[in-house]
């Protein structure tokens, strides 16, 4: 009891010094919390962009389709009633839509550009994806249309406008070259850069007749769920259900499986944060050592007296460690407080990436556009607060022992 009382009162004896060192720790924590919330917001945004425009939460297809270098037209299937019922039975199910992806060359004037053509059933497609909100020109597809919805970057490089004619050159199932022709119906500017350039959307029934396949044949079922986190687990259970009891040859991928790069980026971002925080805390640790050494030098006679009174070395170490931990707590509280304010601002006002990067995210191919909003991550408050206190405590131990082991005679007479 008295040991903590002494330690805490000592903390305020040199309040300037206390505040500065606590400030370093606070800075580390503040920095970490802000970086984490920012990263989380960025990831939240990237993942939801991919989900809303490209992958949906779940995608069901023949396993071969997910392998590299395969012609998607080789792996068609017709979703049976029992498969669809199975999907609809999933907890958290919202909507599903069939998709037929294939590759083609888009011809316009003298130019030609390789694209992925996504044949979609317009009605259900709208329930799974959010395209129609992001059209900058024209309209979305209607069933039976021969038109095409393209991304704004493709429109730009091929110099296309709504109403222009297009030609898609592709290889049909037999192997011979064929073309699809029609009008550009709409131009979309989505926050998912990949969809702005490399993907065009066409009506499925129209595409099927051009491809020479049955209109019920597709190569992917996309499923929208209520929550992206539970979707990952559902993908496994659904796959088991489909391959097990229904004995169908299907693979179910979640959004996470198709965002390898983002997942890696998330890990990298975290590593980076921890590395920087570790460096700042290292400086903080030396600051703590500095404080403990200076205070023990200032209080040599006091320590000597305590030893004469019979305090064990352990108890003296305790006094200094409590003091250092107190520094950690003060720094942690200030840092967490500032972090909370920063997070609040990020959550409610957000941060416009254009300020930082200009238009560059478009070119990097990262699905992040517009304003990023922070995410409350209570665990990062807890983790970094604990980290600061622990670092303070641990780095105080060696200098505390150094102080506690001083010969009491030397200490009392300050020799």
């Amino acid at each position: 009891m008295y040991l903590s009382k002494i330690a805490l009162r000592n903390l305020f004896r040199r309040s300037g010094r206390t505040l500065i060192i606590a400030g370093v720790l606070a800075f580390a924590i503040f920095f970490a919390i802000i970086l984490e919330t920012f990263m989380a917001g960025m990831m939240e945004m990237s993942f939801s962009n991919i989900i809303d425009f490209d992958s949906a939460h779940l995608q069901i297809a023949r396993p071969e389709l997910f392998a590299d270098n395969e012609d998607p037209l080789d792996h068609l299937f017709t979703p049976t009633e029992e498969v669809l019922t199975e999907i609809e039975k999933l907890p958290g199910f919202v909507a599903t839509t069939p998709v037929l992806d294939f590759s083609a060359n888009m011809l316009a004037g003298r130019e030609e550009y390789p694209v992925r053509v996504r044949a979609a059933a317009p009605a259900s497609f709208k329930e799974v994806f959010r395209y129609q909100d992001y059209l900058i020109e024209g309209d979305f597809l209607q069933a039976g249309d021969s038109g095409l919805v393209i991304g704004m970057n493709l429109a730009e490089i091929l110099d296309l406008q709504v109403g222009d004619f297009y030609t898609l050159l592709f290889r049909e199932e037999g192997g011979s070259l064929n073309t699809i022709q029609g009008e550009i119906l709409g131009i979309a500017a989505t926050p998912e850069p990949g969809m702005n350039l490399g993907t065009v959307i066409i009506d499925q029934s129209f595409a099927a007749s051009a491809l020479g396949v049955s209109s019920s044949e597709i190569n992917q079922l996309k499923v929208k769920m209520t929550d992206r986190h539970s979707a990952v687990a559902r993908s496994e259970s659904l796959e088991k259900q489909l391959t097990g009891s229904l004995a169908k040859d299907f693979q179910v991928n979640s959004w996470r499986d198709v965002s390898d790069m983002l997942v890696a980026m998330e890990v990298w971002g975290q590593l980076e944060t921890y590395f920087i925080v570790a460096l700042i805390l290292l400086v903080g640790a030396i600051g703590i050592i500095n404080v403990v050494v200076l205070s023990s030098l200032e209080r040599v006679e006091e320590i000597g007296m305590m030893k004469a009174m019979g305090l064990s070395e352990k108890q003296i170490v305790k006094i200094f460690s409590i003091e250092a931990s107190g520094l950690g707590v003060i720094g942690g509280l200030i840092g967490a407080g500032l972090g909370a304010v920063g997070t609040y601002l990020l959550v409610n006002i957000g941060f416009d990436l254009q300020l930082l990067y200009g238009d560059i995210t478009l070119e990097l191919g990262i699905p992040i556009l517009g304003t990023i909003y922070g995410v409350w991550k209570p665990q990062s408050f807890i983790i970094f607060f604990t980290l600061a206190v622990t670092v303070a405590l641990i780095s105080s131990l060696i200098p505390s022992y150094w102080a506690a082991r001083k010969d009491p005679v030397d200490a009392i007479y300050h020799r």
Partner: protein
Amino acid sequence: MKDLFKIAWRNLNRNKVRTVIAILAITTVVAIVVFSRGLILGFSDNTYDLYIDNNLGHARIIQSEYRNREALLSLDYGIDGFQGAGLENMLLEIKELEETEYIVPRLKFGALYGGQANEMVRMAGFGIDPVAEKRHGLLLEEINRGRMPEEGNEILVGVGLLDKLKADIGDQVTFMFTNYYQSLQGRTFTIVGVRESGFSEFDDNFFYLPLTTVQSMLGMEDQATEIMVFSTSRDRAEELEESLAILFQERDGTDNYSALAWQRTDPILELFLEMESIFDFIYIAIILMGTIAVISTLKMIIRERITEIGMMSALGLKPRDILKIFTVEGALMGIIGSAFGVLSGGLINLYLSRAGLHVQAYADTISGMDVLVEPAFYPVFNLENLLVSFILGATVVTITCLWPARSAARLDPVTALHHDS
């Protein structure tokens, strides 16, 4: 001044432990600065060089409108010399420029390979001038088997592409392409070399063949789509750009062609360059955190010697001199700390510049992005970095020490003498 240092040195020796810790703090922050500077220099140098060597040159000449159409591998924007007088002529004139060291012209086009099983392999072909490429050296270095294509239908292919073609050196492959007149052609080539750059974008998609062959097969005689101009160093890129602009103005008179220094050619590089200047502030902030230990130590020293200070000023020492004494003491800690910091940071960089710092998550991220960056970090070890970091450390510490030293200099001698410690 020498005496001052001697006094400061003795005073610092009075309590070694706390001096060592204050020095250690500076050592740590300066080492961090040396390391991060080395890392960032290494990262950006690597990246700049990759972009310069592969795509940009020190300045890159294209038809102005080609910039937006490059992704299409369009053939409509060939460089056919000033006023259409031919590429060769233009190259000769560029060579005349004082800043020009050498020139690498290329003609980029799209091609298809129809393999078995209906699959189509899309590729980008580069018409290259073997002599110029040898002078440039990049391709030559990255050929891991075989040789450069010299003439006729010889091609060099990326290692990943070789896989896709299911072919090997000496094999013949037939590619399809559209020529300038939009007619689909086929031609058979002999693979004479394999390039391995380590970047899948290049290795999986690119092949190289003699420029003259490409010019004739596409119907683009004496043309190229891009010209990389190199000067003696990348620092001269801006001068080069300027001279080129003047040349274009004189000889062509239109803004048909654009010549841009590498810094302005790619938005990603622009971003990197901008970030570099932000980092200078971060370095200073890191060092400031380290000075906290020096300042608190100095303040304690001043508190202990308060009677001594009173004595000194009673003896007629001017506040300026007292300021000097304590500033020198702080500066000494800063100098020693910075020296050790530079030493340890330098050693870390020296080691990592050879071994490299490999972080899996980073490599995974990079491989998914559309950028040219080495998937490992190689910090730069150079004297400039060590020197800059040392000066930065010593200066920042000395300047911050003025603050506690000033409070010592301002002490009233009477109160100082009767100070009850």
